[in-house]
């Protein structure tokens, strides 16, 4: 194993730890921090996968904005006590078995498929991504901005509606 692979594995395990914290920890603040750990290690892995622009955007948008947003809501709702909301009923266990079956089928399919040899693609620098976004993918790009505008308006309306009651 090369040094890069070792560092990648370390970040992969850190991300796994963060995800398991989200699943199993009972205090909401720790869940949010586990989410943060997952996002930061994913950003590091993006940078190692030749996507430096996306790694930085991941750090800014996910770890910067979304995790802070989650923490803000936890603070507003005053979720101080540990939650005991694990639902291990029959319905949940059936769904668990189905999910395991589906995803292990996916894993076996990947194993049987002849995946191409690993290689690093072109580097996703801001310039290259910007040229692609503003030439070939202009319409999806503009639609994403429209979607963000609509989301802002709906968030304001939802907040106002709660205030009136």
């Amino acid at each position: 194993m090369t040094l890069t692979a070792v560092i990648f594995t370390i970040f992969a395990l850190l991300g796994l730890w963060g995800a398991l914290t989200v699943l199993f920890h009972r205090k909401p603040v720790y869940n949010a921090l586990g989410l943060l750990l997952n996002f930061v290690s994913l950003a590091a892995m993006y940078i190692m996968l030749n996507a430096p622009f996306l790694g930085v955007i991941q750090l800014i948008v996910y770890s910067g904005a979304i995790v802070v947003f989650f923490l803000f809501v936890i603070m507003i709702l005053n979720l101080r006590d540990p939650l005991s909301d694990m639902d291990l009923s029959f319905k949940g266990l059936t769904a668990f078995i189905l999910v395991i079956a589906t995803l292990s089928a996916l894993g076996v399919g990947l194993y049987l498929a002849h995946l191409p040899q690993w290689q690093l693609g072109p580097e996703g620098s801001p310039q290259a991504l910007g040229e692609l976004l503003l030439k070939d993918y202009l319409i999806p790009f503009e639609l994403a901005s429209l979607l963000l505008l609509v989301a802002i308006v709906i968030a304001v309306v939802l907040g106002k509606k709660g205030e009136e009651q």
Partner: protein
Amino acid sequence: MNYTYWILILSITYFFIGTLTVLFRRNALIMLMGLELMLNSANFALITVGNIVNSLEGQVFALVILAIAAAEVALGLAIVINLYRLKGTANIDEFNNLRSE
């Protein structure tokens, strides 16, 4: 040893943990965190596959998904706050107003 396989398996594992969070936690806030985990694992798989097919388009897709995830989490959290104001809890088992008696 093919790295592609292991990275895609890692992405499936993250997706799996996100799915389990949505399935087993009953708090709406934690369920939204599980959704974020799932979206992130999809981004991760897109970037990996973009690398092995030697194209930048995977990263463009990931960027658009990132914008959608930001919009989704803003709306989701606004809804969670409204639900909490309505019943004083974020546990989704409490919200059964549409169930016929």
